[in-house]
Structure formats: C-alpha cells, structure tokens
C-alpha cells in the first residue's frame, strides 16, 4: 500500500461497517480518523456469549464431542477432535496409531472444505471486483460450479468416514464406532483423486489474483513437532518468536483478556498480539508440507516467513494441496497396512466401563482451518466434566486483526472512504473469522464488598 500524501493525512474519516458480510457471525468495524490521526480502530464483536462451557458442566466426556461440534458448522470435526483429545488426555487414554491416522484424515477433509469455501466464496469476489459470490454465477459460472463441486466432494468423504458431512457421529473418545470398509476406502479415494483437476484449476486461478501489498511483523503461533508430519493434531505449541510450550500450558500461551468493545476475549503472547491460522502454520512448518504443496507455494511466490496477512488466503491454498495429497497418502497407507476392525468400539456413555476412567484435567490442541483450537476439561472419576474451557482461533486473531487495521489505515488515507472500507473488510475477511464461535463464556468473579 502506498503512503499517504500530506494533505490526505489531515483527513477526517469515519468507517462504521455495522454488518460485516462474508464472515460467519456479526462483527463491526469501527475506525475514526480525526485530522489525520487515528483515534479509534476496533473490530467489535457484538454477539452474545453462547455458554458452551457452561453446557458441558455435568455432562459426560463421552458425549462432549457431540455437544462441542455444534460450536461451529464448518469446524465441527475440529471441535470434536479437540474435545476427544482433551477427554482422552484427562482420563489418561492414548489413541492407537490407526485412530490417529484416521483423525488426521478427518481434519484434512475439514481443512479442504473450509479453505475451498473461503477462497472461492469469501475472498474471490473481492479480488474479482464483485460484491458477493452470487454475481459470479453470471460472470464466472465455471468457477462457481467448481467451488460447489469441491465442497460437495469433501462433504461426501466426511459422510463416508464419520456418518455425516458435519457433526461427526462415529469419531469418539477411544476411537471409531465404525471403521471404513474396503468399498469406503475405494469411494473416498476415487472422490479425492477426482478432485485433483479442480484443485489444480484453483491453483491456476489463484495465480491470476492480485493480493493487496501490506506487511506487519507479528508473532505467529501454531502446533510444532519433532517428526516429519505437518502438525495438525499432535505436537507442542510454538511461535515464530521462539516460544515452545506443552499444550497443557495453553493459558500461558493465550493469556486471554477482556476489552470493552468486544464480547469476545483477546489474547497475546510475546508481543502485543499474535496470529494463528494457515499462514501461521505455513510460517512455522513450511518444511513439513507435502512436496506438491511446496511447489504451489513457490509458484505463487509464497515464502516463510510471510508477514502479509492478506496472504493467509494463499497459505490456505497451499494447505489445500497439502491436505489433498496427504489424505490420499493416508488412504494408501491404510489400504497397504490393512484396517484393524478389532478397534471398532461401542462406548455410549461408558455405562459398561469399556474405557477405564481416571479423574484429571486434559487439554486438546488441534489445528482447525482458522488456527489452533484449545479445549480443556477437568473431569471426575466417572468422566463427568467439572469445568471446561474452549479457546477458539478467531479469539486469538481478533487482537492481531485490530493491530493490522491500526497499521493499515494510515497507509491508505489517500484512498476514498469506500476504498478504505473495502480494504479493511478484506483484511478482516483474510483471517476467515468465525465470530459466532469466538463469543464464549466469560468467567466473572464477584468480589465481596
């Protein structure tokens, strides 16, 4: 973005986007510039808390994943898996290698579905100069059809694996109630291989798009690991500022705090803010991406450490290729090794003590499309949740988005009010925020007076 001229810097600007479109949930952008000086710059989250943590209290860990998947319709698998991981961590249960592999596969399906929709539905209209996805039906019919075809493909794979395209049924604490049969593996592989030409066309399309030039150095946070697997499900939490902590220390990582203008809490780590999501994962784990994904990164000129938040979308594209290729490889590995159907389990609410339960506290840390997601449960010796805490990626990004906005506004004062508004909307959309999910239970302690 170009710097502003002297005359422009004396402008008065009021931006008040009361209903930010093409994001999930309700958030307002409020910017106030007086005589060229930035007085106010907020992304205000106005939705009320949803009390999911409160709902979990008193419920069994064996049903928690079905409740928490409802936090989000697009990250329902991620919430399920974070919930399951927290529950297993709390009771001291280690999942089998096969279970971990299938869970990684499930996360890839969610990543594919979410990233494709974000790239096509929410970002492409901005970069193609239209106001929403709907006008693209007339001008870019093939692009629209391709987007919908890809969404359907990954939804169908989810259906096959976990019984439903959202809110998985068969993925539970301890493993899977139903494991894919040979015909299921065939069907999933055919669907995934069949989507390759559409993903290649998506990469071609992305190469024609021009993203805004804006950079702000910040701290990026994501899972990191010592093995060669791009960490989505396992590992410690790391940052580009050199932090590395165990997931159990998630409160020391997120350091949540309340701001007056938002019903969603903000977070910070080593600096005033940090970012999570595809770009954070890309910056921290580039070397572990599938070779084809790295090829795409090189083709679109994306290199770590990238500090342009608008390029989170480009990182999503790279991850899309990674998720597709790695999920096909997982299917090949499962087929080669053979699935152990003895691992199919029926647990219900664990009435028959199929799974031994110890009282304890556990943390799940899972990379979902928008970034790292934490679930923390404290459970009793019957597996009943005494306390729960969920910290979702959008919460962790809100503070960073505001810091970006504060840096961006002075750089675009020479633009019209409409252009400034659009730039800010595009910046927020680049993070793919899920605002409904970010409004979680606010713990208030009343002090005796």
């Amino acid at each position, binding site marked *: 973005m170009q710097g502003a001229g002297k005359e422009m810097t004396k402008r008065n600007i009021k931006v008040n986007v009361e209903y930010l*479109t*093409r*994001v*999930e949930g309700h958030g307002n952008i409020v910017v106030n510039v007086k005589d060229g000086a930035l007085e106010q710059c907020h992304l205000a989250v106005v939705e009320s808390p949803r009390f999911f943590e409160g709902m979990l209290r008193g419920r069994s860990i064996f049903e928690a994943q079905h409740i928490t998947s409802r936090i*989000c*319709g*697009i990250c329902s698998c991620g919430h399920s898996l974070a919930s399951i991981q927290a529950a297993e961590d709390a009771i001291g249960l280690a999942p089998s290698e096969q279970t971990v592999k299938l869970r990684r596969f499930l996360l890839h399906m969610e990543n594919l579905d*979410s990233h494709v*929709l*974000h790239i096509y*539905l*929410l970002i492409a209209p901005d970069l193609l100069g239209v106001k*929403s*996805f*709907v006008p693209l*039906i*007339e001008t870019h*019919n093939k692009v*629209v*059809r391709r987007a*919908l*075809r890809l*969404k*359907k493909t990954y*939804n*169908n794979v989810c259906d096959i694996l976990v019984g439903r*395209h959202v809110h998985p049924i068969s993925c539970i604490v301890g493993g899977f109630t139903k494991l894919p049969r040979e015909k299921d593996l065939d069907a999933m592989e055919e669907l995934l291989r069949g989507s390759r030409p559409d993903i290649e066309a998506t990469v071609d399309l992305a190469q024609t798009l021009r993203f805004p030039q804006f950079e702000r150095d910040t701290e990026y946070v994501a899972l990191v690991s010592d093995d060669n697997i791009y960490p989505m499900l396992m590992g410690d939490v790391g940052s580009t500022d050199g932090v590395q902590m165990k997931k159990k220390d998630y409160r020391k990582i997120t350091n949540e705090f309340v701001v007056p203008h938002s019903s969603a809490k903000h977070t910070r780590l080593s600096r005033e803010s940090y970012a999570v999501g595809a770009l954070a994962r890309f910056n921290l784990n580039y070397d572990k991406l599938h070779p084809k994904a790295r090829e795409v990164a090189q083709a679109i000129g994306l290199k770590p450490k990238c500090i342009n938040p608008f390029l989170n979308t480009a990182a999503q594209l790279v991850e899309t290729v990674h998720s597709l290729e790695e999920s096909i490889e997982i299917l090949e590995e499962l087929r080669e090794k053979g699935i152990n159907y003895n691992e199919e389990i029926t647990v219900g609410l664990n009435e028959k003590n199929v799974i031994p339960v110890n009282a304890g506290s556990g943390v799940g840390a899972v990379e979902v499309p928008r970034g790292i997601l934490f679930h923390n449960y404290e459970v009793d010796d019957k597996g009943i949740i005494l306390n729960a805490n969920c910290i979702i990626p959008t919460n962790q990004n809100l503070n960073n988005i505001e810091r970006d906005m504060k840096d961006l506004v002075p750089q675009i004062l020479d633009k019209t009010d409409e252009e400034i508004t659009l730039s800010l909307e595009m910046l927020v959309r680049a993070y*793919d925020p*899920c605002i409904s999910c970010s409004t979680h239970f606010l713990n208030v302690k009343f002090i005796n007076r």
Partner: protein
Amino acid sequence: MSSLLTDEVKKALVPAPGGLTLIVTVGNVLRGDDGIGPYIASRVIDPKPGIRILDVADRPEDSIDDAIDLHPAKTVILDAADFSGKPGETRVIPQELIPDSTLSTHTFPLKILTKILEQETGSAVFFIGIQPEAVFWGEGLTESVRRTAEEIILFLTRSKPDA
C-alpha cells in the same frame, strides 16, 4: 376445511406441459417445522406424471449438478419461510425477496441454486414458502404445518383410479 394452498401456489405446483417439473424440497428435519421439505419428499411415493422430487435437505448447494442433469422445464423449491403469515400458510415468494446476504462458509443462500439452475437449464424457477409455526431443536412438524404438508403431498401424488 378450507385449502391452505393459494391458487398461485397450486398453479406453481401444476406440472409443466411437455417437460419435467422438478420439486426441490429443502429443510432440516432436526429443526421442527423447517423439516417440511424433507417430510413432503419422503411421502410423495408415486408422483404425478411429469413430476420428480429431489430432496436436498439442508445442503441445496450440493445437489445443483443433480438438478441440472434432470433438465427440468420447471423447478419448484419448497421450503419453510418466515413471511409473518399464519402457521401453515403458503406463498409464492418472488425471487428478488430471496436473500443472498447470509453467505458465509457456513451457510449458502438458496439464490445460488436458483440462479445456476436458471442459467444452465433455462428452467422457470418458483419458490414456495411455507410459514413455520415453530423452528426448534427437535424432530417433527407442528399440526398446522403438517396439514399443509399433507395437502401438498396429495397435490403432487398421482391420483388413484377409482376402485
């Protein structure tokens, strides 16, 4: 009991001459009266000649290719719609009133389905909204909405020859 279907709605449901009439049912069976679309689809076992039912449930965007492949001359979308009417009341909703502002990665506007269908097939697309009484977490229709559903089912089902 008087009919809950207006003349306009009945006209929209009449099969198109010389082509397929595709009835696309939309809704979520886990949200009370929002499940009226799938309810109708599951009960029209033997549709009138020229009519085909396509239940897209809560994922209309995933069935666009299926709908296009059928090359309908006329498409009628049946879904619960809150137009502040009486529970069970039906209306043909003009396309321009179908919102497209709710687009996110979580929800797709029906307009995408209708626009693509029109463009790809030239099909005339009608949207019939049924006023829900209650959209709640749970299965089953309220009585007033179920009566409307039964009337639509009867309207779409092939008449049985007199015994």
